[in-house]
């Protein structure tokens, strides 16, 4: 049975009392209402203890009512949806919500780790740097695991996130962060001016402080003005208002990051919907109306549950009709804190006392005190009596030295206000100090961004409205919209005065950073040890590094550092502000790019046919390629691949090679262009012929290779490797547009236009004769080796035929328009049926290329020269080409370079593996004799043994030498013979035949 809402006020608030919700916290049932946050519902149920601190495991309550909360962090939801470190202050209540306190064992009330408090005298800032060093082995075995277990906050689910995320783009003229009075006024002005506006509000409700503080605007009660304004904005077609959306970062060129919590207010997202959406908003102008954050005062016991920010207390009372305490004391150093007194009194709560650090208070406040029978003490809170059950008694040091005590069950604290300077500082602009409000205000904001209202250090309601309105109108104007904005909403400004007070000296721990348990004395210690720079202070004490990124602690921390180091606060300065403004789920940044949709998938034109054949696919870049085609009864991949190779070498087979990059090179200067990008010459290639080409990078290292054919006087068809297709296109465009703009040449990728198949084997011509129009001459004379031309196929379509061979067999490559790709595969099966045609995959392709000693990816490693690959004779000496000069550098032509050779094991039964190193026989392996490594291996059906290619020092001079293949990482060692890399048909008779 749920506990009654003991601390729910009888009326008022923006909760929907007709919609009760039940929820559980630490296993106990409670109830709340629609419109509650978890924190407000806990407050309404009289729950004060909600968490334990990071280091000392001290009991903690709820400090704030917003996203700056350092204490009230819970594990929300359960199982695979468990979300650690969720702020109870922003988690919306929903039916069945489950939350648990964290960083405690076995329970929140009896946390064994609170024993850490006993060691507090030793656990000062940076203590771990001074110990745990002996013996050295103990760190990983003993100390570190213990520290890791003790540290951390909540527990991640530990299993895959079941929810979905997506990412979207939005565009506007004026982006407004925050829907308080300044933000609404800015949106109103910009919208009326005709600008496209996006307004982001992190809360589920629009209105910001108006929801808690009320006020009068344009003569209307704030709530009424709010409704009217939201209605006006909603009626503008180009104004988009987004709740549950936090603007978390600003990037270059007016790009902003925002997180929309689409369905976090529900137990789980509805079908087809995402949990959260990451927005990338492109805005010409941005008005930051993110408000200000009230800051604590550092005093002994300031972390006792029941100590709460004054503004938070009035939010709980005013907005949620939930009383954090029955008898409240206020500790303030500024005028604004008093508003909590007024709110509390208005809700029928008792005020125990006001402790005001300022020398004077207004007569209005004085009469308020006397009318309501509470005392005003001039001084400061020096201690709090109370434990996990919350505040009981408050010790006060009165101005003049006397002491007093106040009995209360809640202490509201107001140390002044810090404008939310995060967004404006993310481009490394440092905020500047303003003495009159004793706070940092934005300065050096990113281009196009301006702060307005409380975010700009102007806290009055009237000022927020007028500044926001002016900023919105100006932003619209700057973005090119000159419509009439009308008049700004009007309200009075409340008085604001503050007498800075950061730290009250006293006995007991006084916390600056609640979550990380950084105390005032830690800061003093840091200063003593020379960590005076604010960045050193932060790193040494961990001040400001918790999940709230110091929103409630940084300014107090540096003020204390300023005091102990004898500098002013602006001299002491701030640390660097970094996004995101609030922590953002990693899943949201990933969007749908996870699991199988992590990256796009490219399918070859014959993919679905290959899948029907039962092909096993392999990822090659983004491609799925058929790796081999297993047949029933084959025991492993090797058996299938060997069968495919034998079928090709003895009959005919085909393979989809559409993944090769294909580029149309057009224009009168196409030949001249290719001469500059290849090391060999293409301008003299005859029409109807193909030629193998090699490209270098400008540093003289081999970049890519492929076959290029001349289809017409001014038209070449260039192919690249699969891996480099996109990069070669980019490189060629660079050559065309930047290096050689004088050439008349045009480039177009036609990779996807053509389904290309390699058909190889002695019966290739027989197969082709079946499918190619009978009028086409495929004889050696009519279609010689390296010929290339268009042919007609039976059934009326045209294809391009290239007589090129990667396998070393009599072979052609045939291209048909891609929508015929699947039909082509079927027709090749049909045409080759009587010749036992066999489809083969990339493995068999690889075997045959190794048997032929052709280089591929492993040899094109980005560190090999043409000479290393045995292709230096291709380098023309009659022309300039990319990479020519640098290829001649001494280390690149040194005689002891590692060059491609073949290898075969001396034990014919031995399997080879790539990655083994080559060591001279009889020597002990070491850095001095590590002479190369094995790049590619395969079982060669032709040789009936494993063979391989290797890069070996002076390898070509050492053919016949027996060396050692050293593979310690796989525990293998064996002898191999260095040999000619062309294992199969070295004269090339078969491919020319």
């Amino acid at each position, binding site marked *: 049975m749920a506990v009654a809402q003991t601390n729910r006020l009888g009326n008022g608030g923006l909760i929907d009392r007709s919609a009760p919700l039940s929820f559980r916290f630490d296993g106990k049932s409670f109830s709340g209402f629609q419109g509650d946050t978890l924190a407000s519902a806990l407050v309404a149920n009289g729950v004060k203890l909600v968490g334990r601190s990071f280091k000392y495991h001290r009991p903690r309550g709820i400090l704030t009512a917003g996203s700056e909360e350092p204490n009230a962090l819970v594990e929300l939801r359960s199982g695979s949806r468990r979300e650690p470190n969720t702020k109870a202050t922003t988690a919306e209540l929903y039916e069945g919500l489950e939350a648990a306190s964290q960083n405690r064992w076995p329970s929140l009330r009896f946390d064994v780790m609170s024993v850490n408090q006993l060691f507090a005298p030793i656990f000062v800032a940076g203590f771990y740097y001074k110990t745990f060093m002996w013996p050295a082995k103990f760190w990983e075995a003993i100390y570190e695991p213990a520290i890791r277990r003790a540290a951390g906050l909540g527990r991640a689910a530990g299993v895959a996130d079941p929810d979905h995320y997506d990412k979207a783009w939005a*565009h506007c003229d004026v982006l407004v962060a925050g829907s308080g009075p300044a933000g609404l006024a800015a949106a109103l002005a910009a919208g009326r001016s005709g600008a496209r506006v996006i307004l982001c509000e992190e809360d589920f409700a629009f209105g910001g402080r108006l929801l808690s503080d009320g006020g009068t605007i344009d003569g209307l009660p704030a709530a009424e003005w709010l409704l009217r304004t939201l209605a006006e904005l909603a009626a503008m077609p180009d104004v988009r208002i987004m709740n549950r959306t936090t603007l978390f970062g600003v990037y270059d060129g007016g790009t902003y990051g925002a997180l929309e919590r689409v369905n976090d207010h529900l137990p789980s997202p509805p079908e*087809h919907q995402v949990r959260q959406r990451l927005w990338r908003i492109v805005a010409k102008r941005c008005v930051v109306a993110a408000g200000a954050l009230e800051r604590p005062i550092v005093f002994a016991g300031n972390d006792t549950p029941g100590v709460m920010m004054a503004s938070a207390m009035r939010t709980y009372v005013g907005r949620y009709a939930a009383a954090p305490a029955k008898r409240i004391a206020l500790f303030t150093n500024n005028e604004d804190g008093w508003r909590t007194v007024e709110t509390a009194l208005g809700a029928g709560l008792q005020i125990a006392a006001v402790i005001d650090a300022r020398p004077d208070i207004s007569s209005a406040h004085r009469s308020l005190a006397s009318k309501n029978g509470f005392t005003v003490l001039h001084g400061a809170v020096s201690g709090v009596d109370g434990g996990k059950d919350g505040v009981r008694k408050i010790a006060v040091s009165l101005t003049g030295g006397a002491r007093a005590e106040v009995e209360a069950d809640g202490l509201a604290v107001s140390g002044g206000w810090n404008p939310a300077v995060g967004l404006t500082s993310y481009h490394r602009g440092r905020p500047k100090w303003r003495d009159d409000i004793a706070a940092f205000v934005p300065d050096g904001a990113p281009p196009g961004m301006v702060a307005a209202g409380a975010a700009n250090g102007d806290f009055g309601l009237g000022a927020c409205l007028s500044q926001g309105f002016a900023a919105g109108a100006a932003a619209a104007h700057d973005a090119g919209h000159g419509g009439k904005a009308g008049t700004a909403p009007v309200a009075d400004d409340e008085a604001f005065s503050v007498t800075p007070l950061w730290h009250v000296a006293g006995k007991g721990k006084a916390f600056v950073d609640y979550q990380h348990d950084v105390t005032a004395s830690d800061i003093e210690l840091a200063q003593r040890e020379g960590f005076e720079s604010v960045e050193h202070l932060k790193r040494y004490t961990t001040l400001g590094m918790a999940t709230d990124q110091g929103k409630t602690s940084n300014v107090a921390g540096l003020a204390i550092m300023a005091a102990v180091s004898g500098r002013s606060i602006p001299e002491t300065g701030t640390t660097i502000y970094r996004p995101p403004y609030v922590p953002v789920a990693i899943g949201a940044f990933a969007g749908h790019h996870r699991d199988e949709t992590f990256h796009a998938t490219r399918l070859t034109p014959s993919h679905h046919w290959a899948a029907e054949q039962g092909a096993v696919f392999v990822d090659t870049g983004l*491609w799925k390629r058929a790796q081999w085609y297993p047949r029933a009864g084959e025991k492993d991949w090797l058996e299938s691949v060997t069968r495919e190779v034998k079928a090709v070498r003895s009959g005919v087979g085909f393979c989809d090679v559409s993944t090769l990059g294909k580029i149309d090179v057009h224009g009168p200067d196409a030949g001249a262009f290719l001469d500059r990008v290849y090391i060999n010459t293409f301008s003299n290639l005859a029409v109807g012929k193909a030629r193998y080409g090699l490209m270098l990078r400008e540093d003289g290292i081999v970049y890519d290779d492929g076959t290029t054919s001349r289809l017409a006087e001014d038209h070449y068809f260039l192919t690249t490797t699969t891996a480099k297709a996109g990069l070669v296109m980019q490189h060629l465009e660079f050559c065309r547009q930047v290096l050689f703009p004088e*050439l008349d040449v045009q480039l177009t990728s036609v990779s996807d236009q053509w389904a290309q198949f390699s058909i190889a084997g002695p019966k290739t011509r027989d197969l082709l004769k079946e499918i190619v129009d009978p009028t086409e001459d495929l004889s050696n004379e009519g279609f010689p080796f390296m010929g290339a031309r268009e042919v007609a196929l*039976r*059934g009326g379509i045209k294809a391009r035929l290239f007589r090129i061979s990667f396998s070393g067999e009599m072979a052609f490559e045939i291209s048909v328009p891609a929508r015929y790709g699947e039909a082509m595969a079927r027709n090749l099966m049909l045409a080759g049926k009587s010749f036992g045609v066999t489809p083969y995959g990339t493995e068999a392709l690889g075997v045959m290329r190794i048997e032929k000693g052709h280089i591929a990816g492993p040899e094109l490693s980005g560190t090999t020269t043409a000479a290393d690959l045995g292709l230096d004779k291709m380098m023309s000496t009659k022309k300039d080409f990319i990479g020519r000069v640098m290829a001649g550098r001494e280390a690149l032509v040194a005689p002891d370079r590692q060059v491609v050779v073949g290898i075969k094991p001396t034990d014919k039964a031995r399997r080879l593996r790539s990655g083994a190193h080559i060591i001279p026989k009889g020597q002990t392996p070491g850095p001095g004799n590590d002479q190369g490594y094995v790049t590619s291996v395969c079982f060669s059906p032709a040789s009936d043994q494993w063979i391989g290619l290797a890069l070996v020092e002076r390898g070509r001079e050492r053919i016949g030498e027996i060396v050692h293949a050293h593979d310690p990482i796989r525990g293998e060692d064996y002898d191999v013979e260095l040999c000619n890399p062309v294992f199969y048909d070295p004269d090339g008779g078969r491919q020319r035949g």
Partner: protein
Amino acid sequence: MAEFSWDVRSPLDRALLAGPYGAHGDAGVTLTEIRNFDLVQVMARRGKAVDMATVAKTRFGVAAPETPKAVHTADATLIWSGPDQFFILAKNGKHAMDWLVPTFAASGSLSEQSHARALISISGAKARAMLAKLSSIDLHPGAFAVGAAAATSMDHTSVTLWRGNDRDGQAVLNVLVFATFAESLWHTMLDSAAEYGVAIAHSEELT
């Protein structure tokens, strides 16, 4: 001698299942694959931009787009695809390579791209909301008017995007995507549109 049948298969032949998808109720997004079109890329030769434009004007009756636009003629759409280049999208071989090569012989370089792309037409009340998940282009009616085109990327994949004539008062956005990426992008589109409800179809008609 075997009989060869050269049936064509669009890149989305397997992936596209006509009918409703995703959330129930009225479909917010309609995805229609247009099949069996002719597509030729024309790139101007050095110093021949004006000649190419003249040839295009003569043949199509309209100027080829010199900025990111798509221009409709009676039987073709000319879509800007980059500086000094454009696509000719047509049907039934009226503007196929065989006809165009001689026309542009002196001024342009032509590449056959009919099979290199898939064409997906997107419409419906939520078309822009769905495309906002895929495209960084501002598709606001004022920013991307009828006839606007863009060479851009979706899901890290190059596409040509243009806005056709409105249909039933709603914007129609067309996407040409590389054929080998088409199935992947299609699934991403379905994922993005599922929450709005999708009506899936294919068509032989250019819109």
